């Protein structure tokens, strides 16, 4: 199945690709690593040795930003993948496998929705503090609902549609109907949800950094960097600006990708 992209989506994809290239290959272009400190060279402005300067521990910002970006992208990718698989399967099953499953899943969804997502993530993050994997579980736990609701709605609409009725009358089975009818209808929507979901996962991880329950040192994380660099905003504005701009760019790239023809 081919997805034809709008110009907006293409520019989003190009930006995302650029960011991925930086995250993966950026660190190779400079010596050193993201954790090594140099307390006698703190907060140097960007120069030929440190292309983006150093932070308040004298760490190389070029490498730290790339590392942080890697982490954010990985989180976004994993969350999207997991929640999409769970959400779509549950959504299709709920719409096709009888009332009780539907009601049960609906009850779970209402429960999760009734709790603000961030609170759920805070609790999960507190179970294993500073764990990437716990954040991943928590964010996925919130995000699958969107996929679930959309795939359930589409499937429900389709179960009584002529095309599915026609395939049933011709004797085709459930799996065939999923493959030929439900999935093709869900997939384009999925792309949009996934793009925005990725953006949200990145934003949520950054927000957790802000309330100190995100990733722990010395791992670089964009939200935490923003908080750490904030006190220096008048001494070293570039230090605060760098993670901010990078965060905005990666979220923007995802959101542009998700923007379909309608908007």
């Amino acid at each position, binding site marked *: 199945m081919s997805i034809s992209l709008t110009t907006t989506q293409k520019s989003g994809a190009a930006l995302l690709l650029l960011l991925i290239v930086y995250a993966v290959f950026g660190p190779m272009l400079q010596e050193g690593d993201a*954790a090594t*400190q140099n*307390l006698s060279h703190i907060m140097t402005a960007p120069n030929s040795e440190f292309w983006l300067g150093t932070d308040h*521990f004298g760490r190389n910002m070029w490498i730290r930003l790339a590392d942080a970006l890697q982490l954010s992208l990985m989180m976004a990718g994993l969350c999207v993948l997991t929640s999409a698989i769970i959400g779509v399967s549950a959504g299709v099953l709920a719409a096709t496998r009888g009332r009780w499953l539907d009601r049960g899943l609906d009850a779970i969804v209402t429960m999760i929705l009734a709790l603000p997502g961030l609170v759920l993530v805070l609790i999960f993050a507190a179970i294993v503090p500073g764990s990437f994997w716990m954040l991943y579980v928590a964010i996925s736990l919130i995000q699958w609902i969107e996929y679930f609701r959309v795939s359930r709605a589409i499937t429900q609409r389709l179960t009584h549609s002529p095309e599915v009725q026609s395939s049933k009358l011709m004797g085709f089975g459930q799996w065939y109907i999923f493959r030929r009818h439900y999935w093709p209808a869900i997939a384009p929507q999925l792309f949009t949800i996934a793009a925005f979901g990725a953006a949200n996962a990145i934003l949520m991880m950054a927000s957790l950094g802000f309330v*100190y329950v995100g990733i*722990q*040192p010395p791992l670089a994380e964009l939200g935490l960097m923003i908080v750490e660099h904030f*006190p220096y905003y008048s*001494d070293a504005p570039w230090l605060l600006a760098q993670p901010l701009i990078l965060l905005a760019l990666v979220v923007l790239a995802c959101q542009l990708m998700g923007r379909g023809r309608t908007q």
Partner: protein
Amino acid sequence: MRFFTSSLAGAISALALATTPVNAEPTDQNTVKINAAFEFSSIDPSRSGYVFTRMQIFETLLNVDNQGNLTPGLASAWDILEGGHKWRLSLRDDVVYHNDTPMTADSVVKALRIATEKPGAWQGVPVTSIEVVDAQHIDINLSQPFQPLGAILANYASAILAPQAYGEDNLAREAIGTGPFSVYQIAVPHRLVVEKFDDYWGKVAEIEYARYLTGHRAEARVLQARSGQGDIVFGLDPAAVPTLKRLPNLEIIRSDLPRTLVVKVNASHPSMDTVEARQALSLALNRRGIAAAVLRAPEAATAQILPAYMADWHVADTSVEQDLEQAKALLQAQGWQTNSDGWLEKDGQRFEIDMITYADRPELTTVATAIQDQWRQLGVKLNVSITNSSAIPAGHADDSLDTALMARNYGVIADPLGSLLKDLGGAKGGDWGTLNWDNQGIKTTLNELLSESDPSVYRQKAQTVAQALYDEKPLIPVASYVQQTAVNKRLEGFRFDPYERSYFLNELSWVK
């Protein structure tokens, strides 16, 4: 015309009368705005009493001066009788509670008895009874001499509240104290407004109102100082200090505290159970770098727990220099080899330890991050975990703790002996002190000091303890904690209490 002028004058004077603040409302002009990090979860002095003593609502029988000497408070004098088994306190006769009832010996005894039942400062004090002697005197009877009792009486947990303040469960329900300020408004846990108390026995305040506001985030407090929304802002993030110093409307006051940034070490951890291993960890620290780059106070680097001005407890000949080579050599002698990844290894085990710290004090996280990298140079893998401060005593209790970075205040009780006893004297050490440090001699010395009255012997024994702490590193000091306070220049008379018992609000006045 005459009629006109006189009526105009009348109108003006009426207007002036109406706007004159006769104990009117707290406004921006008549209120000192104070911002600090501490929430108060309750009015009870045993819990968040420090907020109430600092805001000068509650007072204690004894006070402490800047040098740590006991001075009279609500008690004008104290005598130690019967070889230290009895403390007799003479009460002031001119003290009035905020509810306008006089402070009597009965009410003081009631307040003290309630204080002794609660967790905190009074636990472990060998009190047998507290009795009224006469209208102006009370006795505290001890089963054995206890030198730090004076310091405990100066602690916020020993604050004297009016009898009407307590509920049936002996928890304070209303904040009725004796200080120069009384409560105007309380919104637990963030906000406290006080107004001056005109019948105060001591120096009556000049400012009318003061407002205490909890600001959890260090960034927010800095911003409040910058923008003039905090007149006095405590606990500034060192990172922001250089910027704040450039502002014309602020004065940044640097105060030394008997508070030290210390790494608590589990001395029975297989990698750290030798003196040499702990010394190596200490030598690997770039204390000057941390002090200069992180704390923005290069002279704060220290290798000792107690500051130089606590001379009894401070040894002269110590070094804060980093020596990575010697540190490596020490560990090599212990059998540690560098593996291919650059980490130290012995018997297939990596030198890998956890460090707990907490985010409430902004410096701790950054210092931990710095230590992490400095120990990495040594080949020691440190996993920093930023959590709640309670993880430290909890980890102490079940031995799960490897190391912890903390900011320990040895002046909670004015004489550090009390704190040191708590920190070093327990079976395993102390919740906020050593863990599994096997040095029976030190415990014995500390206990002897409790009843030691000869200053020179006291000093000699104290030096032994300080030397042992320096040599064996059951606690690895990093830097002394520098309190940075921003004070708006519209105020004068600000004074910082190194023991953090009082904000001395009654000494403040508005710059005219």
